[in-house]
């Protein structure tokens, strides 16, 4: 069993309009010292998954099933109290929006000190020294002074770094970073990504990074999980996903993205249509209304949900198209267009 093992996780929200199947049967694992990148369309269930792992849907209206094993402990069936006790030290999260997750009325230092003292029986002075150390480590200039600043007195990049300092205050064994750099400028983003890499190396923690930026996952991740409509559609080693992707949605993502490291292409290759409704998820393969190859699977695309099946090279793909056909499409039609044009 891995350090983190998620098995057939389902998180559904009953609403007036129907049940929103935000996460619908997700399975993945992660070892200490490894990084998993989760990418996918807006609304595909990335944030709901991470909140689910932290136990933050407990007590709400969400219907959760499946298993989440963290270092031998099962969290879906565990009482909310027990999961809360794991937050901070065992697992921590950097949220998508740093402003909303820091309290505006307390100084940055106060918030780090409190987070630290929940799990560590130390004096205020010791905790304060720890907070100053951490702020220095994440690159806040003059941490001894800035520890007494309020969140609004920090720039966006500094706030994000302070959030990271807070999440790291108890050296969590699992760190989930939800779009940690989306709101930041590229030069600040580069600093933050370096920082996360260094910290992970130092503490050997497991890291989940959620992003829409394929560049960010290419830099950090060992494994990549691609989500679409609440389900995993492709999952494997980072190199496999980039150099031998087999799912039409992953192809679409790669074709949509202008790249600085290649000759500029004449035209981008967008995915047609728009993301699916999670209340009326398209039947069969959720991607079929947008998939250029939907007609190649003899009507099964719209009637039968494809299995997440392993390829010879060992990564997982959820698509009805025969493997040989996918390989040949990638090699002969998709890859040449993406790489030259």
């Amino acid at each position, binding site marked *: 069993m891995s350090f983190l093992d998620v098995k057939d996780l389902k998180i559904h929200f009953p609403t007036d309009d129907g049940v929103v199947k935000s996460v619908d049967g997700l399975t993945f694992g992660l070892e200490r010292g490894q990084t998993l990148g989760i990418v996918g*369309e807006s609304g595909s269930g990335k944030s709901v998954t991470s909140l689910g792992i932290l136990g933050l849907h407990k007590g709400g209206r969400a219907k959760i099933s499946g298993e989440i094993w963290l270092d031998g402990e099962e969290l879906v069936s565990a009482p909310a109290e027990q999961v809360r006790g794991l937050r901070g030290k065992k697992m921590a999260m950097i949220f998508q929006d740093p402003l909303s997750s820091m309290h505006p009325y307390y100084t940055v230092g106060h918030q780090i000190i409190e987070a630290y003292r929940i799990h560590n029986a130390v004096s205020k002075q010791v905790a304060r020294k720890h907070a100053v150390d951490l702020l220095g480590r994440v690159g806040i200039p003059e941490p001894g002074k800035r520890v007494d600043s309020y969140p609004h007195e920090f720039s966006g990049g500094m706030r994000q770094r302070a959030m990271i300092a807070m999440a790291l205050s108890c050296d969590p064994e699992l760190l989930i970073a939800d779009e940690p750099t989306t709101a930041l*400028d*590229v030069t600040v*983003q580069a600093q933050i990504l370096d920082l996360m890499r260094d910290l992970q190396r130092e503490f050997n923690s497991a890291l989940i990074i959620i992003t*829409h930026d394929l*560049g960010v996952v290419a830099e950090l991740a060992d494994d990549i999980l691609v989500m679409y409509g609440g389900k995993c559609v492709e999952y494997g080693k980072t190199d496999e996903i980039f150099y031998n992707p087999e799912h039409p949605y992953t192809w679409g993502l790669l074709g949509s993205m202008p790249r*600085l490291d*290649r000759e*500029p292409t004449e035209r981008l290759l967008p*995915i047609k249509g728009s993301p699916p409704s999670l209340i009326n998820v398209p039947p069969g393969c959720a991607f079929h209304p947008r998939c250029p190859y939907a007609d190649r699977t003899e009507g099964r695309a719209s009637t039968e949900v494809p299995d997440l099946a392993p390829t010879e090279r060992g990564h997982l793909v959820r698509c009805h198209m025969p493997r040989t056909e996918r390989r040949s499409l990638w090699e002969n039609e998709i890859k040449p267009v993406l790489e030259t044009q």
Partner: protein
Amino acid sequence: MSENEPLLSVRNVEKHFPVTAGLFKKQVAAVKAVDGISFDVFKGETLGLVGESGCGKSTTGRLVTRLLEPTGGSVEFEGRDITHLSQGKLRPLRRDMQMIFQDPYSSLNPRHTVGAIVGAPFRIQGVRTENGVKKAVQDILALVGLNPEHYNRYPHEFSGGQRQRIGIARTLALKPKLIIADEPVSALDVSIQAQVVNLLEDLQKELDLTYVVIAHDLSVVRHISDRVAVMYLGKIVEIADRKRLYSSPMHPYTNALLSAVPVPDPKARKERERIRLKGDVPSPLNPPPACRFHTRCWKAQEICKTVEPPLETLASGHSVACHFPENAPVAAATAGEAGKD
């Protein structure tokens, strides 16, 4: 790009926002949001404007469309000085210059139908249409890839990409000559971004439009632009055609920006040389004297702190404001482009 007269000509334009304090709103300082910038935009071209958050990109867009009045310098549109035109005199000009905004959600009135939104410019400007406003609106909807039947629907019934199309349709209604697009795709999903980028390119060809595209995403800007201007703290530090700018950037800041972009190629992550900038962008309330980049520049010498480097144009047409520009390119971008000259 044409050799003829520029459509838009900006000279030493400034916008200093007053900072007031006390009962009598006495001015105590000024935010130098835009501090003496000059550039031309030629008919049919796309000028990209990049730079980090707060450097003055949006303010520049608002100044050249005269949504804001400059506090210094001049703006000429089709050879006519519009720097200080009154609102009344500006009205006919508003048809020719349109702005597309970042947020497709907040810029559409939720209580108006798509027909009313896209048709509003005709009514406001009192424009007569050959077969009635409805027909004209439906033609524009078709042009941006929406269904004419969408005429009576409301914004909330559309996806993000579709809403951005509605926003674009509205700006096209009056057949503008110049479109300033302020972060037109940054709020959209990757797959949808590509649809909108392609749409902007198609419309440019079809309608002979001239664009200024403001974006912080350097890959998108390279894809869409003919020339690119880089801003730092209210100044333009470099302008060049995109090939030169991305393959042999001269300003140290441009070099740092390009090297910070994460590249979606896992194998490249080990090989890449990164320029790491220290610190955040300084406050525009109190920008560093002389070269504003000197507080973060690894090449800074004494002269950089005392003498402001002017934006000088080289024989190649490449303009840069730096005492010690990089001439051996350290581009993160492709080597391929450099060879094609």
